[in-house]
Every structure is written in structure tokens, then in C-alpha cells.
């Protein structure tokens, strides 16, 4: 925090998001249609050169941010949301009933079966059944749920017995009100941090699946990295550009997630 990491990260992320969202609209060519021969060097017409099939790399980069972001975000949000529900449930019932921890037994333990399968194996298994982006979203979500649930339960456990929560219960507030007004604001830090971690993990899963030859095809940045590998000696830019972009995205989100963790510690302390 004494170094301007957080501010730089916010700036980088903002620029990346603009590129990702506006990119498909400003791409000079159809990202799927060939504009030249394969592995052409950069020219004024194709600023970053062409890919393995003669398609414009710049257009593919501009077009590929959104599916990457969409898949990773959808998976991260789905995993984090399911984990939050499970974690809050466990914290609430087990925390408030005091002794019996049946929700943990009924909800979190079964989720642990997912946690003990190495993530790569889980991804491979799921992608055998559901190919394409839907499979990736599911894979990312399932690898994240048990961890998110644990994080949220740990964050919410000390909160559920606080005085203001007791007061809200005594007032007769409904569960939605209590969760929305009393619990979520206090666990927002860990929640955001967890979402960031899930998002970075999702980016990783998307590229790794491509590398193992089980990912979906298309123009998302992860796929671009994998497609670039065979021709890296002919056209280093094909690999370098998506790798740098993915790394920037992952790093900026990680820095911001770390910051959220630090802040949430301060809140919960």
C-alpha cells in the first residue's frame, strides 16, 4: 500500500476493460476470415501480423477479450455465488444454533469431495461431458465452490453472533433483510477478494484447457495463446501479445483482490 500498486492495478484494469468491451466494435477485420497468408509479419494493413491461418491478429485480440472475460467472469461469479450461499448457510445455522453443525456436515462436507479432486482433473472430466464455453464455466464454478464456501463461512462465522445481528433477529427482520443489510456488508471484503481469486483461477483454467487440447475453439485470449505455440518461432508476437494481456489482467485483478483482503481484515478485526 505504500507503493502505488493498487492505483496502477486499477488503471491497468480499467484500460484492459475498455479494450475488451470496445474491442469487438473496432476490430479492423472479421476475426474469423483470413486476410493474408499465415504468419505474415506486421504490416500497415495487419498491425500485429497474421495468425496460423492468415487471420488478422489484432482483430482476433480485440475480439477475444470479451469471450475470455465472459467465460472467466461467469465461472467465477457462479462459483463464488454458490460458495457464498453455502458458506453463509453454514455460518448462520451452525453459528447461531451453537452446538450441532449439521449444515456443515450436509453442505460443506459434500463440497469437499470436489476440493479433493485436483482441479485440472476436474476440469478435464467436466470438459469431456460439456464441451465449449458452457463446460468451462461449469468447470471453473465447480473448482471454486468448495473454496469460496470455506472462505465465506470463515468470514461470516464471527459476524452472525454480533449484537447488531441479534438485534435484527430480535426485531423480527426477515432472512433476506438480515443477509442483505447485516451480513453481506461485513463479508463484502472477503467476498470481493474471493471473487478476484476465482477470476484469476478461471483465466488459468481457460488457457490450460486449451493447452491440453480440450478447450473450445474461438478467439478468446487463452485459445490464442495455445494456437500460437506451434508457430512461436515464426511469429513471436502471436504468443507474446495474448500472454502479456492475460498476465496483465490476472496481475491487476490479483493486486486488487489482495487489497480487498487487507481492507476486509481491517474491518473484521
Amino acid at each position, binding site marked *: 500500500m505504500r507503493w502505488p500498486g493498487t492505483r496502477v492495478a486499477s488503471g491497468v484494469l480499467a484500460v484492459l476493460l475498455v479494450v475488451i468491451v470496445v474491442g469487438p466494435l473496432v476490430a479492423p477485420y472479421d476475426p474469423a476470415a483470413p486476410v493474408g497468408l499465415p504468419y505474415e509479419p506486421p504490416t500497415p494493413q495487419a498491425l500485429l501480423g497474421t495468425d496460423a491461418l492468415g487471420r488478422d491478429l489484432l482483430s482476433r485480440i480485440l475480439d477475444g477479450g470479451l469471450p475470455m472475460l465472459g467465460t472467466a467472469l461467469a465461472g467465477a461469479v457462479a462459483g463464488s455465488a454458490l460458495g457464498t450461499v453455502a458458506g453463509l448457510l453454514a455460518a448462520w445455522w451452525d453459528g447461531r444454533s451453537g452446538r450441532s453443525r449439521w449444515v456443515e456436515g450436509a453442505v460443506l462436507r459434500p463440497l469437499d469431495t470436489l476440493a*479433493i479432486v485436483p482441479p485440472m482433473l476436474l476440469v478435464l472430466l467436466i470438459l469431456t461431458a460439456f464441451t465449449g464455453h458452457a463446460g468451462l464455466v461449469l468447470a471453473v464454478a465447480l473448482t471454486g465452490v468448495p473454496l469460496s464456501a470455506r472462505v465465506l463461512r470463515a468470514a461470516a462465522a464471527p459476524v452472525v453472533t454480533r449484537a447488531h445481528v441479534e438485534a435484527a433477529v430480535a426485531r423480527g427482520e426477515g432472512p433476506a433483510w438480515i443477509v442483505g443489510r447485516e451480513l453481506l456488508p461485513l463479508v463484502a471484503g472477503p467476498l470481493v477478494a474471493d471473487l478476484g481469486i476465482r477470476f484469476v*483461477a478461471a483465466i488459468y483454467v481457460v488457457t490450460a484447457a486449451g493447452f491440453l487440447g480440450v478447450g473450445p475453439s474461438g478467439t478468446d485470449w487463452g485459445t490464442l495463446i495455445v494456437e500460437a505455440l506451434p508457430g512461436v518461432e515464426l511469429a513471436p508476437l502471436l504468443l507474446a501479445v495474448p500472454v502479456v494481456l492475460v498476465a496483465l489482467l490476472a*496481475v491487476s485483478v490479483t493486486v486488487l483482490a489482495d487489497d480487498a483482503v487487507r481492507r476486509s481484515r481491517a474491518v473484521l478485526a
Partner: protein
Amino acid sequence: MIRLVAGRLATGAALLVLLSLLVFVGVDLLPGDAANARLGASATPARLAETRQRLGLDRPVLVRYADWAGGLLRGDLGTSVSGTPVSAILGGRVANSALLAGLTTILLVPISLVVGMWAGLRPGSRRDRGVAVASLLFVAAPEFVTAGLLVLVFAIGLGVLPAVSLIPPGAGPLDRPAALVLPVLALLLLHASYAVRMIRATIAATVRAPHVEFARLNGEPPRDVVRHAVLPAVLPVALQVWLLTAAALVGGTVLVERVFGYPGIGEVLVTAVRTGDLPVAQALVMVLGAGVVVALLAADVGVRLSTPTLRTAEQPAPVAFR
């Protein structure tokens, strides 16, 4: 402590039972089956039906599950689609992957502690920022890209290390240590970076804590401050990070193994999934799941032993994943 270990073992066993059910019945819902995979393009409906019957695939799924789970308990991992026993396929490969993961963990412990301390003892300094940025980058870059770059530099460019892990039959990777260098290095760059980040953050927080401030103001020499005030606070966290990294390395070596053609489980796993060799994939899930259960158990016990307040407590140890 014995009660704790026994309890955790029981939980682990229950998890594995649940996992086996999930894996068998879940996989059964996937499109295609062993008969499909065996026959491939030569499948006709009549041939498929005949093969299913011969392989017993026409029986109800729970009956087949009972068969399979019973086999697992006897140490029989089943038969691959190719007709080879799964245990013969996995054979030394599980050990080879474990070797890769183990070596990485062993090297990761001192490296992450030293680098984490070196950076974290002076939070905000130039070296701290350098370590923070470098570790972030290595965590963010896919390890197969890092591994590919290592091959380009050290094998193709400098020619000092082998580009592929060619281990002669009958020998183990330890007989050709040079072949282990780049795979372990690629794994280290990723996983040590993660450990460094966690340890650095803990140390940076600890050196700002009041009791450390107090010791320093009391004029204790820096070395003693580190030994008496910082390390005791950092070690439990570090231990947990290391053990969780070890757990993540179970099955986490797949991508790097593929880059180097390392004879571990990675290649088996990818081939099994791509060719629909479900018996192999199912057995691998169970073997690796058991490995992770053991690693997590060790993490749990280790954290408790190193944290005085938790040594007698009943609540579960805080488990943080990446």
C-alpha cells in the same frame, strides 16, 4: 491429537467414498462408454450391444459401481479400455509425478522462506516491490508458457539441459537428474511465487505488529528480533502454505509434464480423457483424491502442532486455498 487424526481420517475416508460414487455414477452419465471407446469408428449398433454385454455394461449402474468399488478396496483399479489393467498403466507414473511434486515442495520451502523474509522484512523497499512484481508475474503466466521459455533458453539456446525427459526403461527420473531440472524449475517458478507472496505478506504484517516494534525499540539485535518475534508468528502460516502447495502439486504437474514429455500421470490423464478411457480416469481421480486427502490431513495436523492456541481446540484449522 490421536482423536483429531482419527476423526480426520474418518472424514477423509467418507469423502473418498462419496467421491467414488460421484465419479462412477457421474462419469456414467457422460456421452459414450467403454464399448464406444473400444470400438471407435468401427462401432455398429449390434457390435456395441454385444461389447456392452461382454463388458457387463448392460447391468444397472449401481451394480457396476459396487463391483468397481469392491475392486478398489482390494487394490484392483479396474481394466482400461485397451484391455490393460489400470494398475499396470499407472504403475511407476504415480511415483514419478510424486517425485516431481516432492522435489518441488522440498526446494520450495527454503526458497520461499528466504525470499519471503528478504522482501518482507523491509516492506515497501525496492527489493520488496521487485519480489512482489516478479512473484505476481510468475503466478499469472501459465506454467506451460514459462516451461516453454525455459526450454528455449536452457535447452535449445544454451544447450546445457535436456529439452525432454527421456527416462530409459527400468530407470527412474533420479537416474537422469538433469532431466528433472527444468520441469522442477518451471513448477517452482509458479508455486514458489505463490508461497513467497503469502509469506512475504505475513512477514510484512508481523514486522509492523506491536510486539515486534516493542522488541526492536528495546534494542534487541535484528537477528534476535527475527528469531524470537517474527519467525514464530510466520512459521505456522508458512507451514500451512507449504502443505497446501504440496496438495496442489498432486495432479498439478500435468501441464509441465506434457511440455517435457515427463513420464508421469499427466500424459495418462490427458490421453484417458481424450480417448474416453473412463476406467483410467476414474482410477486416477480416486488415487489423486486419496493423495490430496493425505496432504490436507498433514496440513491440518501440522498447523495445529505449530499453533499453540489450536493445539487443544476443537474447531477446524483455517484452511486457505489459492
